[in-house]
């Protein structure tokens, strides 16, 4: 294994942050991983494309994603309309590109939210133990007792049919995953030398938790976030596919597939295929990216 040739690559993440030599080693290790595994490099490239589409999408598309043109309705892919047009004559390519931003925002927001809720609850549970731990564990178990997508449906139905609530529901169903990982990681560091040293120098529990333990488990949590991004996108798209959250005519991948579903049986495949493929590529990209990041952060679990 070539970790041995790197000064710091194989060391646990404790040693990595805040030191320039450690940081350089991580960077070198990352470069090694990417060159060793072209798939990871490919997923980074794909992520860049998705990111650019999310950032600049509305400014670079050839047509207004909401402008209908009934003369050109239901036309297949052509030079003028790369992905064809839908039943109202809207350009599918423009809609797919513009939708990237909304889907991306939903995924990022829900992952950030669950990181705040699940991550912090898990760290607190693992660090303090006792009742805090029991309560967090019980909440996680109760959420896990539901089939996750079904619970998300119920939450959106109860809180109200908005994009915001889709984000909240997606975050809640991912809560157990984050809480468990954070709990396990915080638990093993509870009696670690650096924590004891920090406590000995008079730091409060809160300060140790947020200033010492949290930064230490960050790499693992980032991997977790990347791995759940794909699921978050799928979950949100599934909810909008059944008519929750995003309302027409807003461009969003799930709702566009739902729009195109009726035309699949009459042969107009392009309306549903392209947004569905975009969804698939995005999820695929996040999954690969998560695997790649895990290889960088946690070389022992490399497959």
């Amino acid at each position, binding site marked *: 294994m070539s970790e041995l040739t790197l000064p710091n690559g194989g060391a646990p993440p404790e040693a990595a942050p805040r030191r320039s030599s450690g940081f350089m080693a991580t960077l070198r290790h990352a470069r090694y991983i990417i060159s060793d595994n072209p798939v990871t490099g490919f997923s980074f490239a794909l992520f860049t494309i998705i990111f650019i589409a999310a950032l600049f999408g509305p400014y670079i598309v050839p047509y207004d994603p909401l402008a209908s043109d009934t003369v050109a309705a239901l036309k297949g892919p052509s030079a003028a309309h790369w992905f064809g047009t839908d039943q109202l004559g809207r350009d599918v390519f423009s809609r797919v590109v513009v939708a990237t931003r909304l889907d991306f925002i939903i995924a990022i927001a829900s992952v950030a939210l669950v990181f705040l809720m699940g991550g912090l609850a898990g760290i607190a549970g693992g660090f303090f133990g006792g009742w805090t731990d029991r309560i967090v564990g*019980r909440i996680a*178990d*109760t959420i896990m*007792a*539901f*089939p*996750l*997508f*079904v*619970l*998300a*449906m*119920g*939450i959106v*139905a*109860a*809180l*109200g*049919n908005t994009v915001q609530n889709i984000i909240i529901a997606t975050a809640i169903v991912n809560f157990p995953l984050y809480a468990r990982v954070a709990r396990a990681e915080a638990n093993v560091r509870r009696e670690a030398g650096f924590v004891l040293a920090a406590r000995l120098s008079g730091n409060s529990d809160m300060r140790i938790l947020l200033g010492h333990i949290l930064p230490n488990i960050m790499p693992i949590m980032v991997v977790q976030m990347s791995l759940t991004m*794909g699921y978050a996108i*799928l979950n949100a*798209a*599934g909810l909008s*596919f*059944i*008519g*929750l959250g995003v309302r027409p005519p807003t461009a969003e991948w*799930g709702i566009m*597939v*739902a729009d*195109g*579903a009726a035309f*699949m*049986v*009459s*042969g107009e*495949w392009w309306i*549903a*295929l392209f947004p*569905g*493929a975009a*969804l*698939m590529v995005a*999820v*695929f990209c996040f*999954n*690969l990216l998560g695997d790649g990041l895990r290889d960088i952060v946690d070389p022992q679990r490399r497959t």
Partner: protein
Amino acid sequence: MLMMFLKRMLMAVPSLIGVVIVTFLLTRALPGDPAAYFAGPAASQEAIEQIRVKLGLDKPLIVQFGNYVNDLAHGDLGNSLTTGQPVGKEIKSRLPASAELTLLGLIVSMLVAVPLGILAATRPGSLIDHACRVISTAGVSLPVFFTGLILVYVFYYLLGWAPAPLGRLDVFFSPPPHVTGFYLVDSLIAGDGEVFFASLKQLVLPALTLGIFSLAPIARMTRASMLAVLGSDFVRTARASGLTPYTVIITYAFRNAMLPVVTTLGMVFSFLLGANVLVEKVFAWPGIGSYAVEALIASDFAPVQGFVLTMAIMYVLLNLIIDVLYGVIDPRVRMDA
């Protein structure tokens, strides 16, 4: 054995209590005033008050919860706002459609995923190993409703092999007499081959969609646990004793490798029951998922709540069965209990 079963049953109780509390809280989290909501937009203040008293919403939360649990114990899930029908009855009549679809989907994926995982593990680095890896990565990235639509396009529109994605049975056939509610089983009991094949035809695509969806985690787990078992000492001993590869892999390795796979089934069911909703929507399947979706769009909360509760209870029970199954397969688990 019986003791273990009882212990597992007791362990499911906190989950069930949690499920009931959460579904209760979900109704109370409904936006706005539930009484005004149930009274309709044109109701006067007095009418709203009357409904509040009638629904017991003027009582403290804990009393409301008691009433809710009492209703549940009597199998009363409330009435649908749009149809006026009791939700419990509707769910009960639609449940077999969903169950038939989900079970068939699971069977399809087990039949493909387990052999695939075993083959991949016995020939690491081979073509089939790579195929297994690609399939399990691609499988988790495919939105289940998208897979369904692609299958409909290819097998219905292009090839014409499958019937139109419109429910459980073609309109020309009448459903078999009700015994189990599973059309495949009922038609066989009635000895009606024509209906059996007609309903099988309708089932193939949605079951395949669910199968493709749940293929990935099962194949991945089978491969990983087979690899671990094949590297263990007792397999080496079995090989060294000159047993045939078949005996080593099937009798020795496979039975031990199945344990983690059975555990994974719990997670697979969580995905399957959720994916079921989307597949039912794509194929206009008259199960409880499409019932909930229709109610969701009409902002009719009682059916949605009944649906969430039914699904959650089924899921808890499935996990219970998996736990018990685990004890049956692995005697060591029984010793611990």
